[in-house]
């Protein structure tokens, strides 16, 4: 009965795909949702590729997942992936439906799945990865994820025993996941810019996981990312199996080394967050046996997708759209930190409102007081326009961060924000938006681009 039900669900899901194409609904999870609705243990029966790579973690998993797929493509290997869909169980089911024959056998030998860490319990019991690459575990949506310890516990409970973990040694929270699993660690060696004390509001590893004593950091990069030790019990961060070192921003390179050798890799992006992503990706491919010589070449084809970060030069005005994932204090802090570090005067438009929440209830704004808005209190940042339903909350938070009220323009309509933001040639205009606001960001970008053209023409 189970198999018959599965086949009925598979065929119904496969049939739904041409209908979705005709109605221009490509890229939705509908086939997977339908299949799971018709056959709740659909993921158990659907054929799976022999090698499954799961990319999970709080931040960076979409970027890493795309980079892994880009490298496979550059190497001439076709893999199944879920880039077009979502990273929850129905998204992965949709990909597996695409990658299966009419009788449910897998057509691919390798799959790369971005996997929502909170959904591990609905995925890993049936989709059992050979490799699980974890970017990091940080605070995320307070409503869905609570805190990273909760997510680490879910992952520990559901990660298959046979999966090899590729973990960030500089993140002690992800290091704590599934302690009995085989694992390797990656990280980035000490940088000149490192500290030993945290300057961020969020630091979720202040005490030793063994004895609750105060952790000390040999170097601390941001939040709890760094190398820690406990002088009370001797606990330390694990050593690196794969390390990023000798970052040369001028040349745009990073050396990635392991016990078998090293390679000099062209930086995909110069933010430290994306250099971590590169080292993570290199660790995965090195684990799979790809030599540095080939990997350095293939890595040149890896990209950070434009919806996450985009630069547009209009005359002497540079417009940047920066994804700052709504309600994710840490991701937004990292985005603020990156933008403030760019040279030159900037004007900022904040519009990373959680628009979907606002449709139904109201965005939980606790994250704003975990997020380092203080980074926007920077001499190179001039006017800050705050927009969207939570514009007033942004204003209060910016005042709390020490930004003078005279520099803040509060305009709840995002398009009005785009019309009124004050910039001139030589400025950089930085738009911080969320996933919910992709559509309105495009309109905002069009307005600002048009105004930039006019300003430069004058």
């Amino acid at each position, binding site marked *: 009965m189970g198999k018959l039900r599965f086949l009925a669900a598979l065929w119904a899901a496969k049939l739904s795909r041409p209908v979705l194409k005709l109605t221009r609904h490509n890229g939705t999870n509908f086939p997977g949702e339908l299949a799971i609705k018709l056959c709740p243990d659909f993921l158990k029966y659907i054929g799976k590729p022999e090698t499954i790579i799961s990319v999970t973690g709080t931040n960076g998993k979409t970027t890493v997942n795309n980079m892994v797929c880009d490298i496979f493509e550059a190497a001439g290997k076709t893999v199944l992936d879920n880039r077009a869909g979502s990273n929850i169980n129905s998204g992965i089911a949709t990909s597996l439906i695409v990658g299966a024959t009419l009788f449910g056998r897998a057509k691919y030998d390798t799959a790369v799945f971005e996997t929502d860490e909170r959904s591990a319990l609905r995925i890993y019991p049936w989709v059992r990865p050979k490799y699980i690459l974890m970017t990091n575990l940080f605070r995320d949506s307070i409503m869905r994820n609570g805190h990273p*310890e909760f997510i680490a516990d879910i992952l520990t409970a559901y990660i298959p025993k046979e999966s090899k973990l590729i973990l960030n040694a500089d993140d002690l929270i992800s290091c704590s996941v599934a302690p009995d699993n085989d694992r390797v660690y990656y990280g980035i060696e000490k940088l000149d810019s490192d500290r030993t004390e945290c300057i961020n509001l969020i630091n979720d590893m202040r005490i030793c996981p063994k004895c609750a004593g105060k952790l000390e950091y040999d170097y601390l990069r941001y939040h709890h990312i760094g190398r820690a030790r406990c002088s009370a019990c001797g606990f330390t961060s694990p050593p690196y199996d794969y390390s990023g070192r000798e970052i040369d921003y001028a040349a745009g390179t990073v050396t990635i080394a392991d016990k078998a050798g090293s390679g000099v890799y062209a930086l995909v992006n110069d933010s430290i967050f994306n250099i971590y992503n590169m080292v993570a990706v290199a660790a995965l491919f090195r684990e799979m046996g790809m030599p540095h010589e080939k990997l350095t070449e293939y890595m040149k084809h890896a990209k950070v997708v434009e919806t996450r970060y985009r630069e547009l030069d209009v005359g002497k005005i540079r417009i940047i759209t920066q994804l700052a994932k709504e309600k994710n204090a840490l991701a937004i802090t990292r985005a603020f930190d990156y933008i403030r570090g760019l040279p030159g005067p900037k004007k900022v438009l904040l519009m990373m409102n959680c628009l979907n929440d606002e449709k139904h*209830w109201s965005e939980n704004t606790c994250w704003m007081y975990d997020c380092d808005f203080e980074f926007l209190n920077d001499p190179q940042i001039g006017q800050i326009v705050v927009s969207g339903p939570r514009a*007033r909350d942004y204003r209060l938070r910016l005042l709390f961060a020490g930004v003078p009220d005279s520099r803040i323009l509060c305009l709840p309509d995002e398009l009005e924000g785009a019309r009124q933001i004050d910039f001139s040639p030589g400025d950089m205009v930085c738009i911080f938006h969320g996933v919910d606001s992709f559509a309105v960001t495009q309109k905002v970008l069009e307005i600002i681009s048009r105004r930039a053209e006019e300003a430069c023409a004058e």
Partner: protein
Amino acid sequence: MTVEILFPEVCSLYGDLMNIEYLVRSCPEIQVVRTSLKETPAFVTRDDVSLIYMGTMTERAQELVIAALLPHKGRIMQLILDGTPFLITGNALEIFGKYIECDDGSKIDCLGIFGTYAVRRMMQRYNSLYIGKFGEIDIVGFKSQFTHSYGDAEPLFETVRGDGLHPGTMAEGVRRNNFMATYVIGPLLILNPDLTVYILDLIGAKGCRPAYEEAAYDVFRTRLREFSDPNRGFTY
């Protein structure tokens, strides 16, 4: 005036520590003592602590905090009876109840100062907006938690919209004399400038106004208006 923050290295979730930063911004004379898990709390050795604050933490941290406070239970009870102000937010409230019941039915003994107990369901996170009353003061905020509390205690807030300590009750939080504990987060004081004024008065900062007063009241009034809209969803 001295405000003691208990265990900020772990009781730091959801922006809660900014509650005290907001008090300091409103009254720069306030001195803050931060006590870590391995230290003896200032309220044990000093008689001049004006406010004891503890915020939201993880479930593992709750057990560390219980162990750290248990030796001082008698002192805490005495301070509560004497009227020392406490402000306790989020799941820190549970530390002062009888026990926390876990998913597997096991119980974590808490300080047992109040007759409440918490039931924790890790896969059933509860999210809600909140409107309540503290006397004549309107209260707005959020709830986002894995637990609900039950049992007898004098409430801190009377719920106007949303749930109290558990679904179906209007009684939110725990109060005895100047001990004030609530699940409502926001951070609570930043979202509620009138409550901030009350706390400032209580700890001796009479006449101090909430920092960024105009912007804070603008946010407060906007949120109260939004949350009062009957068409707005409340529990998520």
